[in-house]
């Protein structure tokens, strides 16, 4: 302790040994402050935080420079969720004594963790919002807000108290009691908490008592019936035990019958219904599966149809390439004819045979211009020679009266050499001699028309005249 006048360290004397000023009363004030501090510390140790706050404030009223008291007060505020009040105390403490002061560490602890500082501020703001909501009558919203506050800081005593008060206002006494018990765990000496708790317990207790007394009364009521007969009071038990016998047997049988009826009429239909529902649900499931399968089948069938159609198209393409209409055969024959023509032996009859295999239909309908060009070229190249050969063999067959062969060969002779009027004439004669008058007449007419200056024209006219109309 130092002298308030000169700052010298004081001794046990009631005056300053340095400046001589009277310090007796001053010492008493400081001692009083210390006494309050000690009491505050004791209360804090038993978690009577409200009591401790009261004592520490008293202490600081006597001695504002009591660093330990101020730091402890800050700690208690912090414990109760009053972080800003705690910081204020620590800042003042640090300001009074800057060195060797634990308040500095407390301040650093909070300030170094920005997230913690933010949480503290958020908590306080939410609490203030909840209080505003209470004042506006929005109690449900206030409850929600306070629950959020207590999630952030479960030791916020004021929030617990306010929440408990709101629960009390709703007559939700159990919840209120829980909140108040939480308050007491933090601060066992808070007057408001104790008052609320007392009220809550009073509200909870009477109902139990009433309930128990009601039960008791009911029990009394049903135990016996009092009757008076003259001067005597007859006490008749309400539920006298009846002797077991036929009645008991009947009652048991009746009970069993009722039980069976209940089972049959109440429980069984329910069971049946539930089983039916289950079966219906199962049927519905199977129906859905069936529908799905049917849909799959239809889809697959459609796919098969598409594939069949595609197959047909492909088959047609293949046929086209393979030459269903004789294209491939015709090409092969033309190539064979060309090869035979190019061969050194130059067997023109062989060429002709290959060319003869090409069908007239193909030549007239499907043959390409290139095909026809080569075909015409080969026909022209071998035409005269082949015509001559066929003419000779046809004539020979005619002489042998083999008109069929003669007609065939002479036709070819004329085909390969359309200038061969003799072949045409003998073709007509062969028809004539074979009895095919029409074709004979046609052949003679063609000779007259195509070869008007032929030496055989008169013979042809004579034959026509012979044929007549």
């Amino acid at each position, binding site marked *: 302790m130092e002298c308030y006048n000169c700052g010298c360290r004081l001794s046990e004397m009631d005056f300053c040994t340095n400046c001589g000023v009277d310090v007796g009363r*001053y010492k008493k004030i400081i001692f009083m402050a210390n006494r309050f501090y000690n009491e505050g510390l004791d209360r804090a140790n038993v978690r009577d935080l409200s009591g401790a706050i009261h004592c520490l404030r008293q202490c600081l*009223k006597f001695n*504002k420079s009591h660093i330990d008291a101020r730091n402890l007060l800050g700690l208690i505020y912090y414990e109760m969720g009053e972080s*800003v*009040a705690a910081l*204020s105390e620590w800042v003042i403490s640090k300001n009074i004594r800057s060195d060797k002061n634990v308040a500095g560490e407390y301040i650093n602890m909070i300030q170094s963790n920005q997230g913690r500082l933010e949480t*503290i501020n958020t908590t*306080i703001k939410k609490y203030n919002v909840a209080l505003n909501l209470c004042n506006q009558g929005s109690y449900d919203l206030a409850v929600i807000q306070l629950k959020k506050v207590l999630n952030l800081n479960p030791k916020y005593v004021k929030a617990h108290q306010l929440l408990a*008060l709101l629960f009390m206002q709703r007559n939700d006494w159990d919840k209120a009691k829980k909140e108040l018990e939480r308050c007491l765990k933090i601060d066992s000496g808070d007057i408001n908490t104790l008052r*609320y708790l007392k009220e809550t317990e009073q509200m909870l207790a009477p109902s139990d008592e009433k309930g128990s007394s009601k039960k008791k009364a009911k029990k009394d009521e049903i135990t016996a019936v009092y009757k008076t007969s003259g001067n005597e009071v007859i006490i008749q038990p309400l539920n006298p035990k009846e002797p077991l016998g036929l009645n008991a047997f009947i009652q048991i049988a009746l009970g069993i019958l009722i039980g069976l009826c209940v089972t049959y009429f109440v429980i069984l239909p329910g069971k049946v219904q539930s089983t039916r529902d289950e079966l219906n649900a199962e049927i519905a499931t199977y129906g859905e599966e069936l529908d799905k399968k049917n849909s799959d089948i239809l889809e697959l069938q459609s796919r098969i149809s598409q594939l069949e159609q595609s197959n047909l198209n492909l088959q047609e393409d293949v046929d086209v390439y393979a030459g269903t209409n004789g294209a491939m055969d015709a090409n092969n024959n033309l190539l064979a004819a060309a090869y035979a023509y190019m061969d050194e032996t130059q067997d023109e009859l062989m060429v002709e045979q290959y060319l003869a295999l090409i069908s007239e239909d193909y030549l007239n309908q499907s043959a390409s211009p290139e095909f026809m060009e080569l075909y015409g070229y080969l026909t022209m190249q071998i035409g005269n020679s082949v015509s001559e050969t066929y003419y000779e063999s046809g004539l020979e067959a005619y002489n042998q009266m083999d008109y069929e062969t003669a007609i065939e060969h002479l036709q070819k002779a004329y085909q390969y050499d359309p200038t061969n009027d003799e072949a045409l004439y003998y073709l007509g004669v062969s028809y004539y001699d074979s009895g095919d008058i029409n074709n004979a007449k046609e052949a003679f007419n063609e000779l007259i028309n195509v070869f008007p200056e032929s030496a055989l024209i008169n013979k042809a006219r004579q034959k026509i005249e012979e044929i007549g109309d």
Partner: protein
Amino acid sequence: MITFEEELKKFHKSLEIEDAENAIYNQDLTDMADLFIKLVKDYDEEEEE
């Protein structure tokens, strides 16, 4: 019997961090020791007069 409205009036807003500076500056730090010293000084001055 506790009245809700009356009890609600006892709850006050908590100080937010923004208000801490003002709270510190506005805190009355005068203690008994200050008053005593002032009284002694006043008494001494009166005696001198």
